[in-house]
């Protein structure tokens, strides 16, 4: 029987391709809807935005579908962690960057999420806590075991991770300007604190515990010579340092923009 979403399998891993129609639909439908909305609207959408949106959806598809999705669902904790990073640190920000303001405004209005988005944008602490609560809960061994063994559970986890990505980046790169946090310093500290400080706790647990934490990956048929503990240590390393290039590049961009604004502000007029 064909599965519509990646789920933990009980058979040994092979490189035999597995189709997941649900993942294809979840990847293609938003792109079609986006392009139709852009074509029908008289509001501007740049070529760069279109590329960013489609790029974000491609990353979403790559993270969800075979082989990474299958590996992350039931074989490797490190693949599970790589999926999380791709969703939250690559796919979600690219989708936000690719969404024009008028479209984001319309979506938030239709889904009645304007209030929530405004609160997250205004309160960096709230956004940071929300992101880390999702991170902590969805990486708890019991939750992983329950969710990854059913298609709906696995779909839910991937969906929640995308939501976590939007929550994380909303105060920094929200398409709706007024939902973005106005403080450059605040956004830099927020990105550092949210992704680098709290994540150290679960990442260290994964790296330094003597026995595997995740039952589902521990009892999965091994892939190659990678032991369950090595896989978990790798997951911890991915969690700890995987986000560094993206987060620090973003902090760097905000820093230079802030410095440039400050320079312009302090320059004598005339």
């Amino acid at each position: 029987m064909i599965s519509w979403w990646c789920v933990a399998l009980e058979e040994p891993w092979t490189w035999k391709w597995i189709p997941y129609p649900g993942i294809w639909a979840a990847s293609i439908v938003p792109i079609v809807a986006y392009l139709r909305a852009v074509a029908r609207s008289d509001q501007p959408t740049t070529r760069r935005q279109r590329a960013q949106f489609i790029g974000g959806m491609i990353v979403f598809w790559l993270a969800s579908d075979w082989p990474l999705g299958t590996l992350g669902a039931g074989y490797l904790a490190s693949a599970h962690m790589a999926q999380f990073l791709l969703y939250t640190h690559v796919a979600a920000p690219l989708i936000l960057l690719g969404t024009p303001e008028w479209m984001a405004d319309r979506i938030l209005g239709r889904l009645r999420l304007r209030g929530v988005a405004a609160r997250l944008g205004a309160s960096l602490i709230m956004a940071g806590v929300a992101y880390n609560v999702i991170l902590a809960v969805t990486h708890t061994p019991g939750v992983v075991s329950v969710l990854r063994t059913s298609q709906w559970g696995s779909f839910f986890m991937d969906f929640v991770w995308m939501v976590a990505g939007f929550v994380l980046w909303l105060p920094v790169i929200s398409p709706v300007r007024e939902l973005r946090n106005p403080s450059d310093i605040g956004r830099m500290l927020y990105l550092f604190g949210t992704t680098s400080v709290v994540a150290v706790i679960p990442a260290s647990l994964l790296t330094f515990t003597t026995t595997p934490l995740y039952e589902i990956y521990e009892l999965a048929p091994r892939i190659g010579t990678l032991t369950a503990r090595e896989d978990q240590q790798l997951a911890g390393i991915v969690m700890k340092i995987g986000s560094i290039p993206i987060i620090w590049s973003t902090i760097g961009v905000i820093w230079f923009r802030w410095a440039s604004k400050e320079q312009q502000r302090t320059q004598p007029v005339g």
Partner: protein
Amino acid sequence: MRRLRILSLLVLVGVLAACGGGVSTDELQGVALAEPTPKPDFTLTDTDGNPFHFAEETEGKLTLLYFGYTHCPDVCPVHLAQIAETFDQLSQVAESSVVVFVTVDPERDTPEVLREWLDRFDPRFVGLTGTPEELEAAQTAAGVPVAFKVGEGDDYTVQHAGQVLAYAPDGLLYAQYPFGTRQSTWLNDLQILAQIHPEEA
């Protein structure tokens, strides 16, 4: 904001509690037997072609006995990987232990196939084979259900006992370990079992 803080704290506590599983205890965490049973006595052939007298060769050692086959898709390789990975952390226990893997598929598991497969986990693991009659007698002596073939052709599977039998150095079986046994359980129990010597039993 207060509710948010409490929620965050609860989540953190929950995560830490969940991650702290596998706490060591003084008690066996495997499926303990109400009454320990003695080690079976059978003789099979090892991967070098020499006779292996199970009771004699494993005397005074912590012994893990398992009946399986190399074409097993899930249970056998995971069991052996779990034991091998636990041994990596318990080098002293591993030195004074012996893992005996008895094939229930002598047709496909030639001594060479068996050796090569076991070496992927740990070269110290002992592989045994024999005639179908000898293997059946060994399983009966160990008190596990006798394995049987399912399916035809080259792709058949073998229905076999899924538990590892753990004999302490005193020669008694104290606990069994079904599929799904975590490394935390192995880590705990192997250290306990290794301490049960004849004079203390």
